[in-house]
């Protein structure tokens, strides 16, 4: 039973892996399913954010039915609007500016005068949601789906982070293994097992170098090269198989037709004269062994899956950029605590960076470790790199303090706008989801955090957190339930 919509023509046969492979071939060949991130051409330095592209919506949904009025709005992309209104419907932002809810409509209005509203924070790499063994475990592999390691019963850390304004989070783990697995982006307002929790945007997490000597760094580079080459080879085998399978099916169909015809012809003949077809039945090609890991790596090679490389110093960065050139990866770099000298080459390559606390606040713990530049975060911000501050492998400790981390970056010379951007638009862009999360702009999800003062001030408190247009945390519970 062939489906006419099947472009390659063999989705009805073969294994899961094969079907997947087919889909990728299709995707890569025909459409190029890029996440938004793909638009950032590798060689261009990171450009100022493009105009938000409104996602097409059904007219009914587009009619705003929720207005957040009169707030100071920091959009996450650097703009600051005083006394602005946010129009929302269907969980999406329909506009930011001066709105009046239509008279006698059922639209709800949230009075936000005196509040400062920022986009829900995005943590672009965190182990907060992962169960303990996945966080610390030493098993790895490109096929490892971190989403399966989310502990659905461990609610408290998630709710704590949500109450601190973190609304989206990409799963990641510490770099114990060279291949750390496939991450996914989730919203924090939903139980981890709920299907709609996933925002999308998986990425393949790998590490290179990381505090080891030069020779092992070299070995890591070779290891990753052969990983990518292996994936290409695997894909070649799959392609060959697909081709042979197609030929086989054509031959088989021909053969079957012929046999049927002959049978029809020979129906009347006596039993003894009956003969099978003179032609031999075509041989079925052998399928290559299924390898989900290589399949995942191949998706990365196709640019379908961003690659997050965990690096430490400038040599690692050099190696990472080398890999990117060689295989055309859609690359983000994570870690970078000793990569001060590589800032310019990263900026030139236009690669987003995910900075953990030891990069944002270097020298915080020990002065006796080899000196590293204290102004690393500042250097990245000024070089125009897309920066994301992440809680990384200390998610439980740091995810609730994402804003504090940004505030401390200000004390290290980063501008307030860049610091806020590094926990909103920056990480969204690094995840390729800047049209969906991380900013207050038309078409983005209505993930908002309202503070009763300047968010960077210690005296400011979160008043409420909104996810997909619904208030999911309210400091004042009664007010919160009234909004709902």
């Amino acid at each position, binding site marked *: 039973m062939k489906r006419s919509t099947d472009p390659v023509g063999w989705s009805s046969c073969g294994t899961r892996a094969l079907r997947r492979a087919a889909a990728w071939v299709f995707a890569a060949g025909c459409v190029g399913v890029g996440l938004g991130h793909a638009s950032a051409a590798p060689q261009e330095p990171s450009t100022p954010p493009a105009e938000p592209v409104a996602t097409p919506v059904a007219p009914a949904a587009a009619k705003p039915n929720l207005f957040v009025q009169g707030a100071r709005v920091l959009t996450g992309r650097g703009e600051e609007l005083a006394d602005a209104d946010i129009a929302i419907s269907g969980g999406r932002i329909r506009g930011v500016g001066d709105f009046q809810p239509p008279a006698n409509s059922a639209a709800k209005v949230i009075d936000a005068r005196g509040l400062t509203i920022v986009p829900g924070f995005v943590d672009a790499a965190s182990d907060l949601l992962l169960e303990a063994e996945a966080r610390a475990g030493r098993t790895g592999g490109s096929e490892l789906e971190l989403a399966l390691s989310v502990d659905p019963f461990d609610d408290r850390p998630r*709710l704590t982070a949500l*109450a601190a304004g973190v609304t989206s989070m990409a799963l990641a783990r510490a770099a114990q293994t060279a291949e750390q697995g496939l991450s996914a982006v989730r919203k924090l307002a*939903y139980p981890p097992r709920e299907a709609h929790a996933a925002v999308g945007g998986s990425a393949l997490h790998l590490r290179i170098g990381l505090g080891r000597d030069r020779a092992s760094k070299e070995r890591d580079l070779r290891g990753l090269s052969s990983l990518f080459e292996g994936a290409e080879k695997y894909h070649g085998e799959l392609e060959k198989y697909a081709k042979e399978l197609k030929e086989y099916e054509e031959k088989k169909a021909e053969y079957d037709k012929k046999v049927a015809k002959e049978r029809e012809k020979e129906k009347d003949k006596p039993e003894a004269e009956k003969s099978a077809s003179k032609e031999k039945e075509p041989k079925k090609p052998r399928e290559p062994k299924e390898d989900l890991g290589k399949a995942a790596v191949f998706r990365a090679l196709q640019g379908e899956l961003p690659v997050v490389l965990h690096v430490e110093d400038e040599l690692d960065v050099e190696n990472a950029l080398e890999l990117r050139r060689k295989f055309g990866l859609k690359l983000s770099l994570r870690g970078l605590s000793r990569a001060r000298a590589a800032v310019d080459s990263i900026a030139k390559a236009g690669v987003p960076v995910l900075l953990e606390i030891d990069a944002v606040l270097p020298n915080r713990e020990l002065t006796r470790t080899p000196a590293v530049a204290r102004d690393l975060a500042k250097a990245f911000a000024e070089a125009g790199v897309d920066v994301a501050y992440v809680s990384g492998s200390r998610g439980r400790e740091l995810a609730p303090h994402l804003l504090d981390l940004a505030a401390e970056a200000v004390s290290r010379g980063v501008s307030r706008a860049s610091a806020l951007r590094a926990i909103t638009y920056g990480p969204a862009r690094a995840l390729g989801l800047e049209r969906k999360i991380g900013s207050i702009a038309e078409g983005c999800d209505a993930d908002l955090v309202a503070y009763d003062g300047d968010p960077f001030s210690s005296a400011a408190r979160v008043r409420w957190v909104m996810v997909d247009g619904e*208030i999911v*945390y309210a400091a004042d*519970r009664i007010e*919160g339930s009234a909004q*709902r």
Partner: protein
Amino acid sequence: MLALFSLCLAALGAALPNSGIEPPVQAAPDEHPWLIQAGTVIDAKGQRFAPGAVLVKDGKILAVGTGLVAANAKVRDFGAHAVVTPGLIEANAEIESIDRAEEGAEITPRLRLADGLDPESRAWAGLRRNGVTSAFLSPGGRAVISGRGAVVKTMPTADERWILDPAGALKATMGQEPSGGNIVPRFGRPNSIFYRRPTTRMGVTWEFRKAFSDAQLYAAARSAGGPLDPDAQVLADLMASKGEIRMRARLLQDIRTAIRLAEEFGLRLVIEEGIESFRSPEEILAAKAKLIYGPTLFEPAGIVFGFGFATGSVRQQETDRNYLATPARLHASGVEFALGSADYAATDRGLAHQAAIAVHFGLPREVALRACTVVPAMWLGIEKRVGTLEVGKDADLVVWSGEPFELATRPVAVMVDGVFADAQED
């Protein structure tokens, strides 16, 4: 779904700040008395009210009986199946979360366990889950004479009111526990706490006897104007007042040693644990020793929470000899005893469970109740405040889900000094 989640978040916000010690509630006078109603009220003095009620105000019992009415009282009705008894008194509790023993010396009579009590320990909730409202906290057995235990209420207050007696009975330990794991010092500088003197039962007995003999000599010298030795002074005072010594003795040989030593120095004896006491109840009767029996375990050998490798096997050898029917046999022999659950006290095999086993294996129910209430109250010297449900006594009570001391019955609510701590809350 989101609404539900928001509620969870709000609950999170509301639940977390309650981390501190609650301000003392008992001191605040109740505006309204509590009227606690149940199918049955047992007052542990021999009366049973069915249906019954207890009226409580300002932490004290106002009335006990049938058909109580109080105008402005807050009523809490636990239903026809519920049974109310006095709060249980754990006569021998060892709590993990405090430093139970000082290991710096073998004879430390001036140590007071009360100094190490943590009002935030989880043990108190564990005790309350067993229906325990007062407990004697026993020092650990790693020293031969390890200091004074403490008598406390199981609901700590920010002030010291919850400690009924900071200087309870002096505790000594016989048998292998103080010597288990010790190494004979040979040469060089001993750098481990296990380089200690007693390495056998005989050594333990010798340490005890020497301490008291020295105290006798000291008392004589002191009355002749000799210098003060505070440790020996404690022992001398104890002998002079014919005071009480609480000896942990499990095997019959240790029980006999304890009886001999107490007699030798003119001390009143309390035997703790007494695993093999059933072998010779006559000796205990003859010595007029108080017996705090337990713990009784389902396992023939005790699972040891004690001091790890050092004494684990030793304890096991000793506790090995316990029999589930020992309480019943002791009762049949005419020995009056209190029940204690030692290091199980704050676990789910604490006093409620211990008493249930004793009843299950033949101890009459009312005797079991006495062994958990009236008898320990008397022996700990707190009988004027707790132990029975009587007008004027502390409002310490347990509400059971059914007839107490059945294996299927659990305490559903516990009141200490007029304040409820529901089993679910803990």
